[in-house]
C-alpha cells in the first residue's frame, strides 16, 4: 500500500546543525494490517511516521501511495491526500482546547462541507462506538487521558480513512487503558483499515494484533542486516553439509 524507496530525511539541511534522521529506508507497508515501528529513542520512528502519513516530504527517495508517487507533490495536494487517506492519533492527542469533544471530532470534516446534521450524526456515532457518547459535550481539557485519546481516535476516524496513524499511542496510558487501545486496534482491523504505529511498549509490539514490526536504529532498518540472512542460512547449510560429508560413511545394509 505504501512503498518507500531509499528514503533519506535531513533536518536543517545545509546548516551546521544538519542532522540526518533517516538514512536509506526501503519499506513496504501492507494494507489491512497493523505495522509497528519500534526502536530506541531518537532512532527516527516519528520522522518515518510523518513521511508515511504525508505530513512531511523526504529529502531524498520516493514515497509511493497506492502506486502513486507522492514525494514530489506540493503541500496543497498532500493536504488532500492526508484528509482522504489518513487519520492521525498524536502522542499528545493534540485536541483543540476549549472545544467540546464533539467539535473536536468534527473538525477534520469541516473543509468537506458536509451537511451539518449528517456530520454531527457521524461524529456522535464515532464517540458512541468508543464509549464516549456521554462525554460528547465536555470540553476536552476536562477529559481524562484515556478519554482524550479516544476522542483523538474518533477524530482520526471521522473521515473514514483507509490508514490510521498513531505515534506512541500507549505512552500516556496505563496498562488497562493500553489493553483497551489494543481492542480498538482489533476493531479497526475488522473494519479493514491499515494501522501504522510507533511504540516501545512490549504490550503493543508483541501483541498478536501487530502483524509486522519494523525495527529502526540510527535512522536505518534493523531488518537491513537481516538481508544477509539468506547468506547466513546458506553458510549454515553449507557447513552442515560438509559436516555431514565428514561423517564416516555408514555401511549400507545389503539389499535382500
Amino acid at each position: 500500500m505504501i512503498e518507500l524507496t531509499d528514503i533519506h530525511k535531513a533536518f536543517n539541511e545545509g546548516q551546521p546543525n544538519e542532522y540526518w534522521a533517516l538514512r536509506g529506508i526501503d519499506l513496504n507497508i501492507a494494507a489491512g494490517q497493523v505495522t509497528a515501528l519500534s526502536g530506541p529513542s531518537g532512532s527516527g520512528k516519528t520522522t518515518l511516521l510523518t513521511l508515511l502519513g504525508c505530513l512531511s516530504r523526504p529529502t531524498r527517495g520516493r514515497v509511493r501511495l497506492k502506486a502513486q508517487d507522492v514525494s514530489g507533490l506540493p503541500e496543497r495536494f498532500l493536504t488532500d491526500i492526508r484528509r482522504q487517506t489518513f487519520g492521525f492519533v498524536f502522542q499528545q492527542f493534540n485536541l483543540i482546547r476549549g472545544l467540546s469533544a464533539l467539535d473536536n471530532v468534527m473538525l477534520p470534516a469541516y473543509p468537506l462541507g458536509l451537511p451539518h446534521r449528517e456530520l454531527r450524526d457521524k461524529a456522535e456515532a464515532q464517540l458512541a462506538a468508543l464509549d464516549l457518547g456521554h462525554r460528547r459535550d465536555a470540553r476536552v481539557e476536562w477529559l481524562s487521558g484515556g478519554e482524550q485519546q479516544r476522542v483523538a481516535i474518533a477524530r482520526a476516524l471521522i473521515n473514514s480513512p483507509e490508514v490510521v496513524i498513531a505515534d506512541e499511542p500507549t505512552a500516556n496510558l496505563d496498562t488497562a487503558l493500553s489493553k483497551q487501545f489494543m481492542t480498538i486496534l482489533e476493531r479497526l482491523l475488522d473494519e479493514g483499515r491499515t494501522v501504522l504505529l510507533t511504540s516501545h511498549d512490549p504490550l503493543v509490539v508483541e501483541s498478536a494484533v501487530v502483524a509486522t514490526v519494523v525495527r529502526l536504529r540510527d535512522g536505518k532498518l534493523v531488518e537491513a542486516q537481516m538481508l544477509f540472512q539468506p547468506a547466513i542460512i546458506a553458510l549454515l547449510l553449507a557447513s552442515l553439509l560438509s559436516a555431514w560429508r565428514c561423517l564416516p560413511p555408514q555401511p549400507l545394509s545389503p539389499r535382500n
Partner: protein
Amino acid sequence: MKLWIAKQRYLADFTLASLARRKTKNLGLLLVFSLLVFVLASVMLFTSALRHEATQVLASSPEVILQRMVAGRHDLIPPGYIERIGRIRGVQKTAGRLWGYYYDPVVKANYTFLGLTEDAPASGRIKVGNGLARYRGVQAGNVLSFRSYSGKLFSFTVDAVLPADSELISADLVLLAEADFRAFFDYPAAHWTDITLSVANPQEVRTVAQKLANALPDSRPILRDEVLRTYQSIFDWREGIVLALLSAAILAFAILAWDKASGLSAEEKREIGILKAIGWETGDVIRMKLWEGLLISLTAFLAGYIAAYVHVFHFSAALFEPVLKGWAVLYPRFTLAPVIDGLQIATLFFFTVLPYAVAVLVPIWRASVTDPDAVMRA
C-alpha cells in the same frame, strides 16, 4: 456552490468558537482598537463639523469690513467716512457697526457688546449669548447689571437668550440698541467701530478693496474670503497638531497589534499545526484567521465610529473642548450639525482596519505554510 457555503459556515462557526475561547485577549484587542478609532474619528468629525460651521457662519457675514488704523492700531471711524465710501464705484451697501469688549469681573470673562441699528432690542433691553446666560445664571425677563468703564451702573432687562445653534460665535455676545451702546461705553456720537459693505460683483471685491485703500489711506479693508482662509488654516493647524499627536498613538497601536498578532501564541501555532495535520488546507486556515481579524477590526471600527459620532454630535465633543476650542473665553456648549464625510470614513478605515488585517495575516500565513509535521513533536 452549496458545498462552498456549507464550508464557509463551518469556518465561520469555528472562527466564532475560537474568538470566544480567547475572550480576554480578543476583548482587550477590541477595546484598544475601538478606543483608537473613537479618538481618531472624534477628531475628524469634530474638526470637519467645526469647519463646516465656521464656513456657514462666515457665508452670512459681510463681504468687506473696513477698519480705520491709527499708528497701526484699530481706531474709530470718524463721521463722513460712510458717505465717502458710498460714492466709490462697485460698492453696493454700506453700514456702520458698533461693537466693543467688556470685561465682567463677576465671572472674569470678556463679553462682546454689539450695538444694533436694525432689529435692535428696545432701549434698556438686551439679548445675550447662551454662554453668558449660563455663567451669569440669567434667563429672559431677568435684569442684568454691568458697571461701565466710566463707573456708572447700567441695568438691562434680558429680552431673550440667543439660540444655541449659533453658539460658537454668539456665546459671549450682548446685543443692545445703538443709543444704549453709545451711552454705556461713552462712545462719541457719529463715530463707528468699523464699516461693512457689500460689493455688487463678487469678482470685483479685490478691485474695490484697492480703491478703498486708495481713497482712504488710513483704512484697512478685511475681505471675507481672507478671513475664511485664515479660519481654515487655524482649523487645519489645530487639527494638524492633534493628528500629529494621534499618529504617535496609531504607531503605538500598530506596534501593539503587530506584536499581539505576530507573536502568535504557542497555543495558536499549535492549533494551526493540528488543523493542517488533520486535513485543513493552508487556505482554510488563513480564511478562518482572516474572518477572525475582520470580525475584530470591523466591530472595533463600527463601535469606535459610532461612539465618536455620539461623542461629537450629542455630547458636543466634551473631551476635546479644552484643546480644540481654546480661543473662546466662555467655552461654548453647542451642538454641531452632524456632518459625515465618506472620504473621511474611507481614510480612517484605510489606516486602521487595513494595517490590522495585514499585521494579523502575515504571521498566520507564515505559520500555516510550515510543514505540519511539527505537530508531532509538541
